[in-house]
């Protein structure tokens, strides 16, 4: 047993020496970036965040001259990834996809593992506004029909993606403004809300424009939650036009951990600004129903500050017992 122990000890010593010589060079050179950057997405592959990132990736790689590696930290509706963001080394080599209103709403509704202020949004580059749609077999053909139907069937089911989410908050706000009794039914996972409407299991969907675009031959859009009518959907009235002050979009952007040095943040900000001007990227995104947005770091912070009281109040006033 003694010889045994001695052997193990000497072995470990050898190994430690060996591995010290294998240490990868962790000293980062002065110029950022000099090694690959990891772009972490907080949602499953195949989703809106993933698609956006994949379009951005080649352009970013060219702009920053380093490989951009996409990886996923999923779970908790994005919360798992964002709580990890707060403990990630702020050296600019790990950037996170970020979403609004998720990062505002999640900390408000419980222990999300992070606080809204800890998410340092560098750039918000696209959004998908909420849109109210019904299936082609629905008796509802216009927005007025919808109002009539809702009054006749209190508690009618309206599906959407996730809760709390942009979809659910849009519906909550709409119900508040219209005094209708609407039941939000949350669907998670890619496509389950879609099959619910296609199969007629719910009466309507409060979904994203990017989802609707794929089914525009099958579904009837009733209203969209933007300031003005969208170029890709010129015939769809806005909620505002119809008398309901509802503007609700899910924004997507990129963020870094708190405490990231200013020069790194500036480099990232400029890179994403350029990516967002790339005509290929713009074309592909708009084809899929995404709205290009351009909020740099300061503007993103202002956006968050502007939206937070709105959501705080909305959640307060619609809290169920």
């Amino acid at each position, binding site marked *: 047993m003694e010889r045994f122990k001695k052997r193990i000890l000497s072995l470990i010593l050898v190994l430690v020496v060996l591995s010290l010589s294998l240490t990868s060079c962790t000293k980062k050179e002065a110029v950022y970036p000099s090694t690959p950057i990891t772009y*972490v997405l907080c949602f*499953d*592959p*195949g*989703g809106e965040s*993933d*698609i956006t990132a*994949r379009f951005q*990736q*080649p352009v970013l790689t060219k702009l920053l001259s380093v490989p951009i590696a*996409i990886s*996923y*930290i*999923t*779970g*908790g*509706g994005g*919360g*798992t990834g964002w*709580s*990890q963001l707060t403990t990630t080394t702020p050296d600019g080599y790990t950037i996170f996809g970020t979403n609004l209103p998720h990062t505002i709403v999640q900390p408000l*509704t*419980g*222990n*999300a*593992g992070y606080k809204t202020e800890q998410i340092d949004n560098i750039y918000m580059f696209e959004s998908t506004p909420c849109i109210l749609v019904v299936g082609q077999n629905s008796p509802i053909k216009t927005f007025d029909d919808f109002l009539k139907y809702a009054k006749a*069937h*209190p*508690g*009618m*089911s309206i599906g959407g993606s*996730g*809760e*709390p*989410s942009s979809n*659910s908050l849009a519906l909550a706000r709409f119900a508040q403004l219209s005094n209708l009794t609407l*039941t*939000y*039914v*949350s*669907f*998670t*996972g*890619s*496509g*389950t809300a*879609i*099959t*619910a409407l*296609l*199969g*007629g*299991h*719910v009466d309507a969907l409060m979904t994203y424009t990017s989802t609707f675009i*794929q*089914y525009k*031959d*099958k579904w009837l859009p009733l209203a969209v939650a933007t300031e003005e009518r969208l170029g890709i959907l010129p015939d769809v009235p806005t909620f505002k036009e119809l008398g309901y002050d509802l503007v609700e979009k899910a924004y997507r952007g990129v963020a870094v951990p708190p405490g990231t040095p200013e020069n790194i943040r500036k480099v990232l900000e400029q890179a994403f600004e350029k990516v967002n001007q790339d005509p290929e990227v713009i074309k*592909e995104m708009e084809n*899929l129903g995404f709205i290009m947005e351009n909020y740099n770091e300061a503007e993103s912070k202002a956006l968050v500050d502007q939206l937070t009281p709105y959501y705080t109040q909305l959640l307060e006033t619609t809290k169920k017992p």
Partner: protein
Amino acid sequence: METLHALMVGLQEIFVLKLFLMMCGVTLVGLLMGAAPGLTATMAVALLIPITFPLSTTYALVLTGTIYMSAIYGGSFSAILLNTPGTPSSIATCFDGYPMAKRGEGQRAVLIASFSSVYGGVFGVIFLLLLAVPLSVVALKFGPPEYFWLAVLGMTVIAALSTGNIVKGFIGGAIGILISTIGIAPVGGSMRFTMGISNLNAGVALIPALIGFFCIPPVLDMIVHREEEIHLLKTSKVQPRLLLETFKEVMKKQVDLIRASFIGLFIGMLPGAGGSVANLVAYEEAQRASKHPEKFGTGIPEGIIASETANNAVVGGSLIPLLTLGVPGSPPAAVMYGALLMHGVQPGPQLFTGNSQAVFTFIVGLFVATLLMLPIGIALAGGMTKLVSRLSIRVLAPFIIFLTIIGSYSVRNNVLDVYIMLTLGVLGYVLKKLGFDPGPITLGLILGPIAETGLIQSLLIGRTLPYSWMILFKYPLSWVLIILSITSLFWPLFRKIFSKKASSSQQSLEV
């Protein structure tokens, strides 16, 4: 006839040397990833995405489909040789595959798995080609109430899967379901049972739990046997004849093959349920239909056939809603969805009926890939069998732990998942010794969210009815599932009563 023409064109496009070679390489990688416990088919497909991005749409589709199919098949190797499923779709393959390997019939078991996988894969692809659109209509009929009853049906499988005490089996299932409720509620979004540990907000991840429950207890068993024969398996001599014999043996069981294929196809078609459910349900159904159900679990071909046929049929099945509705039928299909979008292909109604050549080439490619994985798989499996049987436990056991660590970590890049994996592994071992099989527990983990989502969504939708729970009994499809569940649940009981009657009538004859 346009279809035929498109298929011919597709065939030509596939048999281009460059693509064909890439398919071979991808198949090999897929098999290896599928075989490694902890690395899943979803991961394999996801890895291929950036690599196929610069390629043409057709190439990207064909290659991702290839790796999907081969990864699912590869899961059987470690299930048979190491009693640890390579992917969650091969859990049931362990039940009969490993006993066979221990008897020295490892080669035979792998061959059975190979032929079954190819059969199921081809079956799924053919249905994808011919009946995708009508089948998608059926898939759409499944709403929240149907998903709930489907999950219930899945849970009744426990009744048959429990080799020991049925009550213990259901307790295991209930525990699995309760564990699955930890974290964010699927419908309401509130945080549950996390005891303030914010790392648990995302809940107990399924893959680490599966890896823990199925891969760690065998390792612990290995430790107990470390002093026994250095060789884990006794290899039988390699017989070329074995190939032909096993082929004939498998093909004779057409009923089993077809039944399992339909189960895989059907479950694959439903978004939200994939290979992990299909292999267990197919196994149970095979056991139920068999004339000697008690032999299941001792190492009979029917067990492997059921599991491996079903899980490969899921591949074709899961692509049906993807291509016809734009909704993926399984997690790997969801990743393929992203790939399609990146190539500017809009999966959905227009794709299939619009006679897009890429789709037909894809289907042909999938078919070829399925056949291709047979020779590559058999060769690889042969090598693996020899390798594993040469390794001693003192090398194998730590190495498996190594793989499980990598596998659990790579799911969410969260070290906590690996801790959970190890903890549940130890727990699983203890529970096994107490008579609680891991199968029912994992079934609970998988089906819990499906059941809860279905139930709560149904109740919400049913708010317009006098009592919201009435919606669970409103639709005929729900009733079909309810009746199937009841039958499945009381089947062991029926069988006992039935066999008693038969034996008592025999006795009266003898008098």
